[in-house]
């Protein structure tokens, strides 16, 4: 076939495509982020449609708690949308294994994401990637700048400085040193153990060694964070045993506490609630000058329904999600949900900037329990919640907690048996 003929054919399809605007391809996005509905409708979708005429996109979220169940039944019935928002790790992997999510390894836009970013949506051997990473959340500590100024405190860099600061706040008595409760349990694990832990187990190095069975939860690197957590109990507010997550948020935004062990997803809410200036510091290292590690947890991604009749259009959209344009819109509309792409995304929110700046100084890792290790019974993540809360309350020793988790893991996970 000569070049002219190809050119003519291409021209013909272009004319046909533009002429048949009534036959626009329509894409539907399944998501649990109903909070983000306006962001998608007002910013992301118009930007995409402007760049890609002929494709119309609808964002159709369902309630977060029902998302997995609703999505599964829609996929089984063949009525699910073309694009599917992916939960990290096993929930999405199960969909891929069941043939509901398409393999996107060859997608051009994937080149813009690091291996750690993609690890949440890959098969265990890393051979297939089935969702395009969207955003991660970073752990650290948010503090009340006014309180720190009042008490003449500096941002703690090392653990010793961290506890010295807590002691100073406690001594002064105006503020509760740290706002966290153990009632809901997950904060103790997520904002406690997995927040400070990476500095002990050296991020990815320890995490992958644990998965490979080379390290155990009874090793010093995994027990030491519990030992530090055990000291936290003294600095939490009165009755922290019955303090819930919203209680902690309110205590901090009302200005009654000085430090809040945080995830970056709090930024939007805190900006709206708190009327004092906030800053953030990263998990303190053991001795000054140590290499630092942060939990930069992959949280949300987008995949393609394998049964979608509009696979080409869907791939165009997913490819676009790998661009700097998308990263920019998303990260700025939702400060605290950081783009996982390797593009340099300028953000306006100072607190979000602070969080994301640690990526340059420290090594990123994800929460230790999320990949593979929470697949069996007993569930390691749920057990970690329980253990972290018990250790903070002083009802279980760090060593016993480590041993219990290790025994549980060893009961079903072959590399640890």
């Amino acid at each position, binding site marked *: 076939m000569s070049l002219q003929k190809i050119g003519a054919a291409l021209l013909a399809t272009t004319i046909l495509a533009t002429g048949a605007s009534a036959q626009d391809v329509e894409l539907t996005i399944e998501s649990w982020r109903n909070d983000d509905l306006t962001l998608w409708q007002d910013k992301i979708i118009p930007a995409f449609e402007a760049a890609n005429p002929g494709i119309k996109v609808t964002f159709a979220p369902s309630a977060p708690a029902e998302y997995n169940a609703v999505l599964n039944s829609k996929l089984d019935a063949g009525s699910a949308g073309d694009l599917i928002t992916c939960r990290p*790790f*096993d*929930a999405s992997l*199960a969909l891929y*294994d*069941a043939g509901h999510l398409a393999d996107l390894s060859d997608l051009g836009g994937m080149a813009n994401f690091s291996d750690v970013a993609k690890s949440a949506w890959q098969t265990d051997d890393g051979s297939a990637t089935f969702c395009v990473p969207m955003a991660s959340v970073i752990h650290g500590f948010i503090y009340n700048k006014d309180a720190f100024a009042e008490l003449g405190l500096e941002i703690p860099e090392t653990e010793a400085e961290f506890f010295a600061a807590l002691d100073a706040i406690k001594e002064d008595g105006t503020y509760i040193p740290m706002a966290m*409760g*153990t*009632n*809901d*349990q*997950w904060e103790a694990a997520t904002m406690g153990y997995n927040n400070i832990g990476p500095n002990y187990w050296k991020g990815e190095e320890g995490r992958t060694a644990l998965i490979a069975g080379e390290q155990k939860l009874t090793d010093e690197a995994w027990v030491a964070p519990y030992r530090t957590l055990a000291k936290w109990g003294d600095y939490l*507010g*009165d*009755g*922290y*045993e*019955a*303090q*819930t997550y919203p*209680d902690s948020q309110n*205590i901090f935004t009302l200005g009654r506490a000085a430090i809040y062990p945080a995830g970056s997803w709090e930024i939007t809410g805190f900006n709206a609630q708190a009327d004092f200036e906030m800053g953030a510091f990263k998990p303190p290292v053991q001795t000054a000058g140590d290499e630092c590690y942060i939990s930069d947890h992959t949280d949300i991604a987008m995949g393609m329904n394998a049964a979608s009749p509009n696979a080409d259009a869907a791939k165009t959209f997913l490819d676009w999600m790998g661009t700097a344009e998308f990263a920019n819109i998303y990260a700025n509309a939702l400060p605290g949900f950081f783009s996982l792409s390797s593009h340099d995304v300028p953000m306006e929110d100072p607190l979000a900037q602070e969080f994301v700046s640690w990526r340059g100084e420290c090594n990123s890792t994800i929460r230790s*329990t*999320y990949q593979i290790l*929470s*697949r069996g*019974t*007993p*569930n390691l*993540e*749920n057990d970690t*919640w*329980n253990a972290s*809360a*018990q250790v903070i*309350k002083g*009802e279980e020793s760090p060593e016993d907690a480590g041993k219990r988790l290790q025994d*549980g893991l060893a*009961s079903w996970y072959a590399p640890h048996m």
Partner: protein
Amino acid sequence: MRTSRIKWHIVVFLAPAMLVYTAVMIFPLFNTLRLALYTEVEQSRVFVGLDNFRTLFGDPQWSGAFWNALWNNCWFFIIHMLVQNPIGILLAAILSHPKLRFAALYRSAIFIPTILSFVIIGFAWKLILSPIWGIAPGMLDAVGLKFLFAPWLGKEEYALTTLALVSVWQFVGIPMMLIYAALLTIPEEVLEAGEIDGITGASAFWKIKLPLILPSIGIISILTFVGNFNAFDLIYTAQGALAGPNFSTDILGTFMYRTFFGFQLQLGDPHMGSAIATAMFGIILIGVCIYLFGIQTRLRRYQF
């Protein structure tokens, strides 16, 4: 005249209720029992007989959680039997006193929590008992008993008892109403006859009224038993599916929910969940049978 014809009108009149009941109660019940005999391997359902039960009772991880939940359930029931029902009877006895003023007001006030949603109850009590915003510490402080306050819902040793008492507070109106109704049916003549024989006041209650309301107390006990062993909502709204602290408030209902539907990173396992549901069904069945054949048949009834 003798007839052996089928009475079609009975069938027709029973059919709607039977159909609805079968569709929403009997079929799901048996399907759950059936589901407990399967498991999922490589995306397909496989029949495994009683393997799930072997895991549930044999595997220390599972059986530990099961016995913990069962004991918590028993404790929940014991508190109700020891606190809710005696208080209910006492309130009914007081309310039925002819000289009590504003009886209707008290009756409604005590009964109202019963009709409130578990979500409201759970949330309201969580706030009342909250060490941070709650009014409980302030109230105790006002009477100089602040030292008695503890974050009850967050302490392993108190949490379940606290929740059981919240549930008692909510449901004390039910035994009160049933006993109250039973007390009202006792004829005046019987009491008057007792009075002539010198039985008045408290001894009239113990010797005449109590024996006459025993069948009602039996019914209340069995309702409490079934209600408590099916309980779930209050624990779930107050403490979440993980039934903290450290599973001290985990009852069979929350244990079943966590297993069946999954929780956080734990994927749901409908088959193990059904096995737990079947065990719950068995426990309730045994309890009800003990009551029906062991107690109910021995209760003496009086006809007036």
